[in-house]
């Protein structure tokens, strides 16, 4: 059995979920920010994510899909124990997706209701995703300590999404909206830092495995760049948002994405070599080699193409404010 194959797929799942958090993160963030803008600007905010949100959501399907293909048993365990938050998140995503399209088509009378549903869907989806991430880090444990940890992450993730959404609006809209988005970004920056700190402190507390992984000498030294770089990025973002560093919104956005990447690397290191902490190892219960190989070929052929045309499409829309062109 090719032992590198499962690891390759862990990488693909990680990449897909990371891209999901960053990409759907900004469009969920726009949904969270919608209630704070006047009606005229709401249309432009929603329009700015119009061409992208369908594809952004597909990264979640890919992450969950590859998990299903390669680690069917882990997929089963994770999703059965996260049954309720997963269901709530899906319902929220459905509500949000339909509200997105209904709000511009169903006439002015109902627009406010659809806007509210769009924001509510975004909020519930963000909370549930945070909850699931938290529950996953604790190894799907349901002790009160683990549950409060999951709750903590649930409340933190929206802050990240708001920051991403605000930065997106700063870069992709014109007029007064970018200035407004800057204030939103500044507001979101603080709770996001607070959440980062709390999570860093709490994670080793809820999981012995993680505590051992991070606080054993000399491994801790090798790992030191991760928290330090995170701190640097976080500080840099704050400086940029307050005008102490000159930076385009795109750069700040990439810095937030860098924090997400660092967090993902840290998490990957913490969990390694398990697929579910303390319960299942990566090499345990993988799908059959022939199935993995078949999927591997598909991923190697299509993933570069997907990334390629995603970049191509973002470039087409670069520097333009998207209008409701087909309305």
């Amino acid at each position, binding site marked *: 059995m090719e032992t590198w194959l499962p690891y390759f797929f862990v990488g693909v799942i990680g990449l897909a979920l990371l891209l999901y958090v960053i990409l759907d993160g900004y469009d969920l963030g726009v949904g969270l920010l919608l209630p704070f803008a006047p009606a005229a600007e709401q249309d432009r905010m929603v*329009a700015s994510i*119009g*061409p*992208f949100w*369908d*594809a952004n*959501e*597909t990264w*979640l*399907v*890919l992450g*969950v*899909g*590859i998990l*299903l*293909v*390669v680690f*069917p*048993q882990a*997929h*089963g365990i*994770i*999703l*059965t124990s996260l*049954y*309720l938050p*997963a*269901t709530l998140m*899906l*319902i929220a*995503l*459905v*509500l*949000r*997706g*339909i509200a997105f*399209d*209904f709000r511009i*088509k*169903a006439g002015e009378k109902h627009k406010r209701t659809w806007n509210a549903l769009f924001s509510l869907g975004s909020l519930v989806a963000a909370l549930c995703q945070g909850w699931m991430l938290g529950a996953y880090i604790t190894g799907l444990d349901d002790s009160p300590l683990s549950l409060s940890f999951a709750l903590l992450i649930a409340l933190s993730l929206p802050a990240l999404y708001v920051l991403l959404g605000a930065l997106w609006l700063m870069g992709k809209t014109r007029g007064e909206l970018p200035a407004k988005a800057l204030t939103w970004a500044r507001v979101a920056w603080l709770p996001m830092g607070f959440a980062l700190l709390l999570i860093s402190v709490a994670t080793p507390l809820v999981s012995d495995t993680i505590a051992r992984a991070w606080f054993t000498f000399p491994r801790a030294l090798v790992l030191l760049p991760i928290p330090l770089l995170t701190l640097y990025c976080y500080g840099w973002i704050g400086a940029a948002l307050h005008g102490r560093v000159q930076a385009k919104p795109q750069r700040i956005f990439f810095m937030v994405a860098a924090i997400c990447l660092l967090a993902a690397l840290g998490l990957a290191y913490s969990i390694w070599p398990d697929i579910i902490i303390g319960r299942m190892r990566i090499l345990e219960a993988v*799908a*059959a080699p022939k*199935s993995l190989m*078949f*999927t591997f070929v*598909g*991923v190697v052929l*299509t993933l570069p193409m*997907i990334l390629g*045309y*995603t970049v191509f*499409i973002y470039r*087409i*829309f670069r520097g*333009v404010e*998207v*209008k409701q*062109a*087909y*309305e």
Partner: protein
Amino acid sequence: MTDLDPLLLARIQFAANISFHILFPTITIGLCWALVYFRARFTLTGDRDWEHAYHFWVKIFALTFAIGVVSGVTMSFQFGTNWPGFMATAGNIAGPLLGYEILTAFFLEASFLGIMLFGKHLVSNRTHLVASTLVAVGTTASAFWILSLNSWMQTPDGHVVRDGVYYVESWWDVIFNPSFPYRLAHMLVACGLTTSFLLMGVSAWRFLDRIDGPGTLKIFRTGLAAAMLLAPLQALIGDLHGLHTLEYQPAKIAAVEAIWDTEAGVPFTLFALPDPETRSNRLAIEIPYAASLLLTHKVSGEVRGLNEFEDHPPVAPMFWAFRVMVGIGMLMITVSWWLGWRVFARKGVPSLLQLRVVSAMTFSGWIAVLAGWYVTEIGRQPWLVYGEFRVADAVADHGGGMVLSTLVMWLLLYAFVLFWYVMTLRYMAKKPSASLQASAQTYPGLLPREETL
């Protein structure tokens, strides 16, 4: 119902989710090709009506696509949340097929949809046409993979089972399993038919409300021509599919026709109340020898009855769902040719009565598609992988209460979305089109003058 049966509830929940989901891809798979056609006609002829047709229907496409995507995300989770046993057992086969659907179809359609909907003024006409075509290719590729998986569950092939786990022997045999070509053709034509009647139905709403324009007639005629072609074709494919099923899943056909005992010269039952207690039909209205003739193409042909099979699906839902599907199919053939005779051979426009009929049939494709899927999926029971692996062995161990509460949430959500989907289509249909405004002076209305509303 004091005792909640989690298996039944899980089945109902999955059925509800997948029934709701399939409504929207059925339209997008057909409609995206119609849009490519409208777009190509405009590019070739420069006739603005085709551009307006594109603009009107691309909005409906976007709405339908969005509901398809979000309800599809749901599906990708449900395999794990409700049927972990399926993945643990048949994951080696089901997983990669789903993976290929995501990699080759989902990203393609979702990504290029952005250019299709919002990028018209940012890219060249050709790039936009290519993007629209790629979206259409993506939706069709999606149907390819998911129908391959579904067909494999019906007529499994190309695998071995070791220690209760499925392993692939030949991917070619898995993907192109025996029933796959029939099922794929049947479903793709069903998508085309559903879309044809939707195009005609919504156009008819506009005629009846007198907010039509010459573009509306072009859309109507496109839908009509497609329906005239596809409806008889679908009957032919359906017949071939049925004969094939008789060979591979005889119990399914016995249930469809409510044939309890094996006999020769079997009558075709038009109406009956199949009774599982007495294992016979009550109040049966039959056409002598017709079932034998249909199924074996011989008057005295022998058909195996349900009593020969240890496991067979429930009879009444199969019997009725099949009759609903075929009934709508026959109606579609009749209506499309009745309209076609008048529109293409004589008057050029439909009559008021005809408009009312197709307006009532706007969503008839949906009903036929659902009925057809119920026949094929209920007909698979009690098996998950036909003849090999039971549904009961795959279900997750949630309490009945948990499944029931999420089921209620889903059903409420679906009722809500469906209601607003139809309302929004009505609302959009009632808005005067750009093409009507453009030709307001020269255009007197299409309905014959003597017919009043």
